[in-house]
């Protein structure tokens, strides 16, 4: 029987790759009075539902999606969260 899973994929720039957006934001924050902010990185977040027999299968599908389309491994890393919808 298939179940529904709530999926969150966070795509971020790989470490070591300069992030001009993050840098711009980091420079803007002190001007607004927020001091002590460092390491700003900008990424994107994708949310969707997946039907799968179990969580392991759902995760496997999402990993394959990331590899083929959702992220570019040359410049991006992904963090995947899969939660069963009760």
């Amino acid at each position, binding site marked *: 029987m298939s179940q529904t899973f709530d999926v969150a994929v966070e795509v971020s*720039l790989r470490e070591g*790759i*300069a992030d*001009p*957006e993050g840098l*711009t934001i980091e420079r803007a924050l002190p001007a607004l009075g927020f001091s002590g902010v460092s390491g700003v990185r900008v990424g994107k977040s994708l949310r969707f539902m997946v039907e799968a027999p179990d969580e392991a299968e759902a995760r496997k599908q999402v990993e394959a999606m990331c590899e083929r*389309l*959702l992220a*570019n491994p*040359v*410049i991006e890393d992904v963090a995947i969260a899969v939660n069963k919808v009760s």
Partner: protein
Amino acid sequence: MTAKVGVVVFPGSNCEHDVVEAVDAIGGCGELLWHKDIHLGDVDAVVLPGGFAHGDYLRTGAMARFSPIMDAVARFARKGGPVVGICNGFQILTEAQLLPGALYKNRGLKFLCQPAELRVESTDSVLTRGLAEGDQLNIPINHFEGNYICSEETLAELRDNNRIVLTYGENPNGATADIAGICNESGNVVGLMPHPERAAHPLLGSTDGALLLEGLISGG
């Protein structure tokens, strides 16, 4: 025989007519191909033109890579057919893994639309086979995501095999090793950020782009 150059139109491409015009002006025959075509017909070369294929959704080139025509483009490339990706076309070729690396947002986050001084680094590519190493070209760039990024290993491979085709005189976008264009192992697949079709007539201020495009129609 007139060389026929197929120019692929994706939804969101916007330089296809300029490429056809430039190819026709140097004695070739430009022909538009639709991204849903599954055959290339009898073309002698393929150009993926600039623009915003599929709106550049997700990442530049990420959706275009799955357009039906791309299987035929990959087969054509594997058989040694000349394939050139200009700007957005370069981004599509990297996403399709026909060329290594990726193109990311310009350092400085500015959309750049300006002339660029380029240096020919390698003549082992279909675009530069009629030129000499060290030749200087003046060809405009027009992009937001032209910052070429690749791993150390890829960079070494590109360098060792003479696959860096063009570099910028003054790096405008943060590209690794000033890279403006690269090619595959056999030199028949080339990607470049500058727009040769926009420097192919005296009225445009430079005809240096025609020198590159001539490589496409001059045959092997």
